[in-house]
């Protein structure tokens, strides 16, 4: 119990430090980076809840981020804007205009509900079959978002989402996600689920209902991801379904994998590292584009570097930077050793 508290304090402190530092510097760019960092943290922690505890790779999470973002957008776009932004919206939704903060919570629930319904039968599958179905689920969600014009404005950009996310709100949500991820990991469900990750048959033999356990983790993950999506929507204020597809899946996945999917610490550290690398590489791309090194615009450099880093990590340290132990446990152990020796 004690080391979980240490883990929360260290990681939470890291988040607060990043936010405070970004505010002290007082440059708008850093404010944006810190907000993005906190939103990514929410998404990555969501993915960690499912992937880390169940050991099953899931591609579908970006789809639930999209569900959250669109749900919140539909609920909050001012009534007079809706005629323009969503011309085909169903009449009963036209008058709805919630406060963005209420809408974020509601859209998290919507994403969790969608996840609960579609994933219930899928949780029986393991290994490659589970991965392919999650990939299929991502494609289904993306296709639906691209073509359900009444709710999403189709493949076109949806605009007019009220701006409501600032760095403090994003940090608060990230902290809550952190707390929930640690709490879930240490809960009965989390422990049984991790037992099933390490040995499916042995866990089933001691009476763990694996599909049921995975289902709970998946719903919790979708809840985070939906809220994260809504936060992002109210931050960026206009987006299209393309924001919730393979490229973003790759980014979130690289954060989790580089840090270490099995630990909450890994998820947080990976998000920090990849966000730092991503922003500096994007900056470099911008500089190269302005310097007109080549005739063509420089794009894709960031992804190439991230892909190489991800592959290098998986070859050298398959579990990521923090493969098994949380930072709290590591610190507590070091402290104990010092006491013993001193």
């Amino acid at each position: 119990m004690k080391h979980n508290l240490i883990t929360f304090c260290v990681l939470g402190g890291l988040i607060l430090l990043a936010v405070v530092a970004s505010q002290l510097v007082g440059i708008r760019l850093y404010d944006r980076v810190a907000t993005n960092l906190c939103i990514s943290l929410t998404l990555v922690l969501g993915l960690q809840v499912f992937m880390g505890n169940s050991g099953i790779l899931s591609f579908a999470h970006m789809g639930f981020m999209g569900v959250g973002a669109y749900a919140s957008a539909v609920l909050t776009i001012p009534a007079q804007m809706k005629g323009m932004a969503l011309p085909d919206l169903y009449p009963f939704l036209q008058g709805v205009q919630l406060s963005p903060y209420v809408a974020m919570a509601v859209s998290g629930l919507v994403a969790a509900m969608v996840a609960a319904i579609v994933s219930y039968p899928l949780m029986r599958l393991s290994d490659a079959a589970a991965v392919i179905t999650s990939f299929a689920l991502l494609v289904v969600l993306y296709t639906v978002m691209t073509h359900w014009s009444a709710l999403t404005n189709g493949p076109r950009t949806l605009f007019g989402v009220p701006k409501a996310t600032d760095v403090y709100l994003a940090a608060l949500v990230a902290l809550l996600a952190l707390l929930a991820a640690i709490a879930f990991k240490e809960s009965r469900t989390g422990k049984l689920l991790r037992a099933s990750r390490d040995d499916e048959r042995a866990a089933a033999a001691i009476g763990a209902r694996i599909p049921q356990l995975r289902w709970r983790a998946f719903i919790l993950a979708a809840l985070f991801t939906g809220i994260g999506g809504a936060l992002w929507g109210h931050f960026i204020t206009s987006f299209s379904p393309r924001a919730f597809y393979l490229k973003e899946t790759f980014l979130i996945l690289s954060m989790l994998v580089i840090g270490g999917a099995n630990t909450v610490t890994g998820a947080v550290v990976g998000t920090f590292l990849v966000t730092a690398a991503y922003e500096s590489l994007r900056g470099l791309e911008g500089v190269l584009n302005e310097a007109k090194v080549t005739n063509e615009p420089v794009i894709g450099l960031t992804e190439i570097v991230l892909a190489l880093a991800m592959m290098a990590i998986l070859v050298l340290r398959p579990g990521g930077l923090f493969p098994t132990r949380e930072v709290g446990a590591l610190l507590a152990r070091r402290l104990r050793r010092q006491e013993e020796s001193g």
Partner: protein
Amino acid sequence: MTFAIQFLIDVLSLGGAYALMALGLVIVYGILRLVNFAYGELIMVAGYTLFLISGSPLPWLVMAAVAVLMAVVAGIATDYIAFRPVRAKSVTAVLITSFAFSTLLQNAALLFISPRPRVIPLPDLFSRTVEIGGAITPMRNIVTIVAAVVLLALFALLMRRTVLGIAMRAAATNFTMARMLGVPANLIISSAFAISGFIAGVVGLLWMGRIGTVVPGIGLEPLLVAFIATIIGGMRSLTGAVIGGFVLAFIDTSLNYTLPQELLKFRDAFTFSLVILILLWRPEGLMRGPASGQRT
């Protein structure tokens, strides 16, 4: 009658392409029980090779052969870079490295070539049309059917009659046992990747012949098609993959003819929901593969 012939040609040519796509994916999956997410990029490699050498005075067939060869090389590279170093460690790790490798290749094409579509050279044959029993159809459909039949026959011969094919089938059935009997594991796996690259290269040429251009994201659709077809047919059965390809082509073509425009947009969502349902109903696919042994 004309309509029936038209429909048949559509199903057979689309199905031939789909069956080949599925076969290329399943040949690796059958042995390693691992999905190669970078499979679509092998098609992309073939396309860009064709684009890059399009200025040369070589005859088209030579250029096509070079393109297919590059896809084979890329297939073997996938094994060495994304699979071999992590194969023994964890299933999830391999899936992620192959996903990362696919992202790597796509973005390399974005960065070093262009995000915009590039025109690839095609022989006149591809743009001609031909009349069969009153139905007018593009020549490339007939080329696709012929190529699919020839390749599938060659492939069947390879798997049944040659030492390599028999060793590969043995490895797919029981990898550990096959190794104990002296089948060299790495060689078999690399050969599977090479064959996968060869099939991807050929099917890539046929596939890109429909549009005449190549873009960095071209591999996604063939990858998705291969997924659906292998799942319909059975993830571990080579025959199943071919049947799955034709079944999927039949479903797609029928939906194209019957669904109203309004619902046709959701076709991908329908077919992928179908995949999910089939996996739930029979996780092994419609055709059962050989009895499963342990993966290395």
